[in-house]
């Protein structure tokens, strides 16, 4: 198994880098497991890891349709934060940030978690009031938040247009200093290696094509690599949730799949050392360690399973970026791509038992799933192991839509494209 250290690097450099071992096994599927997790993204792998670590359930398989890390875990803009308003969200995402703070040590894998801070810019007195209210809610919930004046913002982010003649003048900003970024691929690889070492089988190129039932209970899956029986089947497939659940006979869910685009510029010298978001539209930007500006905006706003978007959003995102940082107008775009988001009806996730006996569902991450990866895996593992949600995800069960107990951060109602 792969071990990374300065000594290993030196040894392998001398050997022409031919001695590195794979980080996880490539096992053949066993006929049966205690738990089968559908979806080898961040959330599925984290769930497998916490099932093994926290609950001692190691006879587990993670089924991935493509290759590991090929979905949204490798397509996001790597931001980790817990700057929410509602108490349920604050508790959940703050727990996630706490897991992030220990993650590299826990996995013995450097996920490059960098608490560089997330700064939300406010552009009107009303928006400033709203952000301060959210900041107070975050502090009340045990998190951190700080209000920055334009003068403090000018010192922190020198490239910003803070002049009075800006199209949307900045009146202040809400900073969450404990927030930041992490290397998303390393998160997938770190969880995969750590789960593999605890006995979890990671089965790549293994697409679920159907579910096995016994007396109304889900008892396994049909896959492109054969039939696999399971005591419990857990689904964590993000934008593909409706497709996979339809195979189990669940035809309707409070989910719509939408496409979100992300962008990387050519590499620049150090330009911005925190995550900055534009409040007069929707833009979030940070700079990677390689120097590229990593940024994104709103979802395209129509149902889509295509992992690519259209030009109006590209134009909008670029114009917002130039409004914020006029000096970036001539920077060239290196890459853009799309991912399929599981937009829920209230903008909050679903981590639940059911909706069928033997089945467990984790979905509805909208476009905020990356930051939740550790807490999502931790609470989903708890829910699978104990057949009941943990206090942290009890508000996020599927039946909240029947009970009217929605967790709607933006107050947009059942309009997924607006969350």
């Amino acid at each position, binding site marked *: 198994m792969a071990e990374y250290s300065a000594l290993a690097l030196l040894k392998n450099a001398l050997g022409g880098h031919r001695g590195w071992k794979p980080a996880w096994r490539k096992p053949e599927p066993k006929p049966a497991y205690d738990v089968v997790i559908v979806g080898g993204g961040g959330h599925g792998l984290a769930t497998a890891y916490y099932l093994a670590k926290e609950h001692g359930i190691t006879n587990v398989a993670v089924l991935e349709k493509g290759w590991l890390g090929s979905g949204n875990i490798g397509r996001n803009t790597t931001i980790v934060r817990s700057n929410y308003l509602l108490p349920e969200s604050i508790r959940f995402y703050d727990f996630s940030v706490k897991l992030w703070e220990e993650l590299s040590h826990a996995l013995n894998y450097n996920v490059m978690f960098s608490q560089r801070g997330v700064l939300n810019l406010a552009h009107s007195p009303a928006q400033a009031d709203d952000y301060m209210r959210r900041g107070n809610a975050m502090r009340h919930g045990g998190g951190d938040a700080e209000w920055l004046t334009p003068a403090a913002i000018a010192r922190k982010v020198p490239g910003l247009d803070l002049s009075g003649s800006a199209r949307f003048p900045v009146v202040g900003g809400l900073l969450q200093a404990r927030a930041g970024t992490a290397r998303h691929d390393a998160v997938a690889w770190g969880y995969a290696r750590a789960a593999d070492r605890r006995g979890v089988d990671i089965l790549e190129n293994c697409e679920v094509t159907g579910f096995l039932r016994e007396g109304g209970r889900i008892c396994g899956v049909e896959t492109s690599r054969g039939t696999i029986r399971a005591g419990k089947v857990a689904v964590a497939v993000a934008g593909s949730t409706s*497709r996979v659940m339809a195979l189990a006979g669940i*035809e309707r869910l409070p*989910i*719509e799949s939408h496409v979100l685009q992300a962008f990387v510029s050519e590499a620049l010298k150090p330009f911005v050392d925190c995550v900055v978001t534009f409040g007069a539209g929707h833009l979030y930007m940070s700079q990677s360690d390689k120097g590229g500006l990593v940024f994104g905006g709103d979802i395209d706003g*129509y149902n889509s399973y295509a992992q690519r978007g259209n030009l109006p959003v590209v134009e909008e995102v670029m114009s917002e970026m130039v409004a914020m940082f006029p000096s970036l107008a001539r920077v060239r775009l290196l890459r853009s791509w799309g991912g399929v988001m599981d937009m829920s009806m209230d903008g909050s996730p679903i981590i639940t038992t059911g909706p069928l006996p033997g089945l467990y569902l984790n979905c509805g991450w909208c476009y905020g799933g990356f930051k939740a990866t550790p807490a999502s895996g931790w609470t989903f593992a708890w829910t699978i192991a104990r057949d009941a949600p943990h206090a942290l995800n009890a508000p996020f069960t599927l039946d909240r839509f*029947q009970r009217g107990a929605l967790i709607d951060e933006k107050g947009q109602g059942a309009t997924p494209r607006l969350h």
Partner: protein
Amino acid sequence: MLIPCPYCGPRDLAEYTYQGDATRARPDPATAGQAAWNAYVYERANPAGPHREHWQHAGGCRAHLVVTRDTVSHAVLAVAPARAGEPS
């Protein structure tokens, strides 16, 4: 993505406003129970493939349209005016 408006011809996506799933049928308030309303408000088929949806040509003739569009390829398969009698 170009959407052919029945009145204006093929126009860019930027002229249109998406208004969501057109397959949902509003329950009859006189007879529908909570489960029917819950399904109407919150549940979606969310298909991968052809999808009937409402769009408004907001930056053009302002007509409300029912567009059948493939959610995997983004190909527009059919466009018709949204008239009375369509699910709303």
